[in-house]
């Protein structure tokens, strides 16, 4: 049984590391990409996925229960907020005549 637990925990750690990796990718993208739209694109996608993985990793450690459901709720709310704000920023940028690749 101990092996299964060890494997179980290491899987948990794997999610956390992957999540952190996606956050790192998102931040690097934020710095590297030239214009608003690609930055928005990278930021929203990478961070949402990263957050999802971290929430999964945390819930993984706690097993089924109320806490894990709360983590799921956190992720869904963050998804909602992230996507709506991304949509608004993009629309505002488009409205104020920002072309695809001129700097913000």
């Amino acid at each position, binding site marked *: 049984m101990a092996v299964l637990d060890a494997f179980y925990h290491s899987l948990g750690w794997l999610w956390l590391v992957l999540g952190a990796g996606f956050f790192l990718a998102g931040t690097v993208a934020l710095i590297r990409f030239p214009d608003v739209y690609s930055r928005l694109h990278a930021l929203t996608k990478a961070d949402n996925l990263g957050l999802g993985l971290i929430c999964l990793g945390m819930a993984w450690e706690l097993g089924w229960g109320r806490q894990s459901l709360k983590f799921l709720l956190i992720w869904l709310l963050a998804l909602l907020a992230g996507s709506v704000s991304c*949509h608004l920023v993009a629309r505002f940028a488009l409205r104020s005549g920002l072309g695809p690749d001129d700097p913000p």
Partner: protein
Amino acid sequence: MTATLFDALLALLLVWLGWRTVVSTNLFNAVVLFVIFGLLMVLCWARLGAPDVALAEAAIGAGLTAALLLEAYRDLTGNDPHHVHDVEDSPLRWPLAALCGLLFLGLVATGWQLAPPTELGETVHARVAESGVENPVTAVLLNFRGYDTLLEVAVLMLALLGVWATNGPHATLGSRQTLDPDSALIDAMVRLLVPMAALVCSYLLWAGAHAPGGAFQAGAVLAGAGVLLHLAERLQPLGTASTSSRALVTVGLFVFVAVACYPLVYGGRLLAYPDGQTKALIFLVEAALTVSIAHSLTLMFSGGRAFQRGRR
């Protein structure tokens, strides 16, 4: 060991953010850095074992103050967000910096070997049972030191009266270039978030007695929903401060003062809740406080103009 490392990192990050907020040349950066500073503060309170304060800081400090600051930033820089505001600081910069550095060294020199005082903490924990609520912070806030909270609610009302005094209950603010109201996404978000905020608010209100939560946190969450509704044009701002909105603002203070004076009727002391009904009375006071806090904070965000339902 890793805990102190994390604390050291967090403290260092806080100081760096504070420094950048104060000295950054671009004003918009300063405001955004301050919002991040507020969010890190929430993490700091949680780290220091203060869930109530973390909740309040998240809802009020990081949430509402950020909304107020961004709104003020847009007003003060003439409505074009790309405006780079160069900073012209005062000539006597260096003597002031030296003075503040001296103050910092003085504070560090005095407070170096401080040990946290434990005696008052024990007395509070020992007597929480008599206070009628289990959560020690709510017990201190509404029962042991209820007088502080009574005056603090007066301060909140004063701030709103101040905003009315500056803008005048009828004054209309500058041109409001708010969100484009007819986009479907906002409708969906508002229809989902506002009921959830109301749910979280009522949970926080009820949980205040035995777990971290309480009137201020609940009121602030509801105020967040109010701000969202206001930005999304769901609340069509009224011209005059209607009597109903004025009544809503005063209900919290009124109920609290009435409950505080209730024991005076039969010879008790001010704010000494009668033994049997402490928990019920505290909940009544907290409910009234939540309503008037939420209403006051939303009104403060909208520049003091009252609301009624329906689109602009």
